[in-house]
């Protein structure tokens, strides 16, 4: 037999060098991913550790007492739920349906392109500008006064462009061939949207909406001008304690108030408020993620 031939596929010096660079690149990417995760974990851990002594069921269900220096956060927690809930109730249907029109019906001409551009630009407007708009339009011009209604509408105006943009992206990700298949059995556009486009993009649409929940819950500026107040006591344990025309407290603003405006607040209180705010957002996200996983498990491709 032949003498063993040298391995022609053995790594050359260049290949080894490439391999080393590959490992270096991998290490860099991994480090970056780690840098992303570590602060997050540290922040959350720190918050929870600081907040732990204060957190209790009672903390959630009692109003603040003694000039915010004691008691719980009930009126702020409920206020945040009202604000986020009503703003979504307005922003989600309008945003999603508008996006459906823009993506499925509108012709690609200069006008739609300008609308699309405007939507993207609107999404980038700072929230303080939305706050001023809300103050001028809803509070003063429409005469809603400083109220939950005015604040929710302001939050809705703020979140809508992003919902439109993300919904459009989700719709555009549905393969065109699905639509063609549908049209070619004689389906109308609406039937196509109803039976094929929406079911296959719903998880993407939800993702966009969920992200806006977190944003609406966390924003302080827009509600400060239009409906949130420093302190308001409401009936404890009653989920319908606020009316739409009432002013309300909100977690984000409450956190701002007790950390910067009120002297001698017990150390754990702001941390506990922050943890509740974080927990509320996580809770809503978790619900939406479960819904999304369930919807996606029915997706066939």
């Amino acid at each position: 037999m032949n003498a063993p031939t040298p391995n022609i596929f053995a790594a050359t010096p260049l290949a080894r060098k490439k391999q080393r660079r590959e490992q270096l690149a991998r290490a860099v990417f991994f480090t970056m991913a780690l840098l992303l995760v570590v602060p997050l974990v540290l922040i959350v851990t720190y918050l929870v550790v600081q907040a732990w002594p204060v957190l209790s069921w009672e903390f959630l269900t009692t109003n603040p007492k003694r000039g915010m220096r004691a008691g719980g956060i009930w009126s702020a927690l409920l206020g945040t739920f009202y604000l986020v809930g009503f703003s979504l109730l307005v922003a989600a249907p309008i945003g999603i349906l508008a996006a459906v029109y823009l993506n499925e019906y509108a012709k690609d001409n200069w006008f739609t392109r300008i609308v699309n551009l405007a939507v993207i630009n609107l999404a980038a407007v700072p929230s303080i500008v939305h706050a001023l708009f809300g103050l001028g339009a809803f509070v003063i011009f429409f005469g809603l006064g400083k109220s939950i209604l005015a604040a929710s509408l302001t939050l809705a105006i703020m979140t809508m462009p992003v919902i439109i943009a993300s919904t459009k992206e989700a719709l555009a990700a549905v393969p065109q061939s699905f639509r063609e298949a549908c049209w070619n059995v004689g389906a109308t556009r609406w039937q196509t949207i109803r039976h094929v486009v929406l079911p296959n993009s719903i998880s993407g649409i939800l993702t966009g909406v969920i992200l806006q929940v977190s944003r609406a819950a966390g924003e302080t500026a827009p509600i400060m001008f239009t409906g949130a107040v420093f302190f308001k006591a409401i009936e404890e344990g009653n989920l319908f304690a606020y009316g739409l025309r009432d002013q309300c407290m909100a977690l984000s603003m409450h956190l701002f108030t007790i950390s910067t405006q009120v002297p001698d607040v017990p150390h754990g209180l702001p941390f506990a408020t922050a943890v509740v705010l974080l927990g509320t957002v996580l809770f809503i996200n978790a619900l939406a993620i479960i819904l999304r996983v369930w919807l996606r498990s029915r997706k066939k491709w």
Partner: protein
Amino acid sequence: MNHFSITTRDLNLWYAKFQALKNVTVNIPQGKITGLIGPSGCGKTTLLRCFNRINERFGYVTTTGEITVLGQNILAPDVSLIELRKHVGMVFQRPNPLPISIYENVVFGLRIHSERRDLRKSELDDAVEKALREVLLWDDLKDRLQHRATGLQLEQQQKLCIARLLPLKPQIILMDEPCSALDTAGTLGIEELMRALAGHYTIVIVTHNMGQARRVSDECVFMLMGEVVEHAKTTDLFLTPKDPRTADYIEGRYG
């Protein structure tokens, strides 16, 4: 031994629990065109993808047995995938030119496999001309080398994908249904090119098209359910198949 470019012995391959290849033992002759034929899902593409170990991207693939390429067991630990793929190129079902110029597509491999300072403009120019001449594209494309490769006709794109392999001087070219996205004229163009390349390169082609297997291949391997049923010279396999299953398949009774 040396007139075989690729030999496998008792090659088994599993995708998770599903066994896609069962005790495959084949010898692919050097400088010839070998066709892999069989119904969809018979494992011919899987076998093809074993020859440059591209299956391994998927973490759940298990391989046992032996694959020898150019006299070297490629499952050995000291085999560098970088070097292996330099010697064993692959052409895919849909032409996949990179979204850069024609020129850059052809020299892409050279740039990947050399240090920047070792590449001279004149060498690259020569490599492009040589590769494009080999795939019969030079006369058509020489005046628009800086155009985008994705704007070419599909047949030209596929030829360009073959040309992209050549500057690295591969000994083996694997083709996975290279004509299934092309029309009749495009298919004939690629087949003509394959005949021109045979001899210089060992070509293994997966095809669903019996006519194509007959026209271009020197030898044919018929596979079924992950096993090699028959391997013979193309003329023999099509005229006097030994196994009744081969006869049924090539006469179009199933598949």
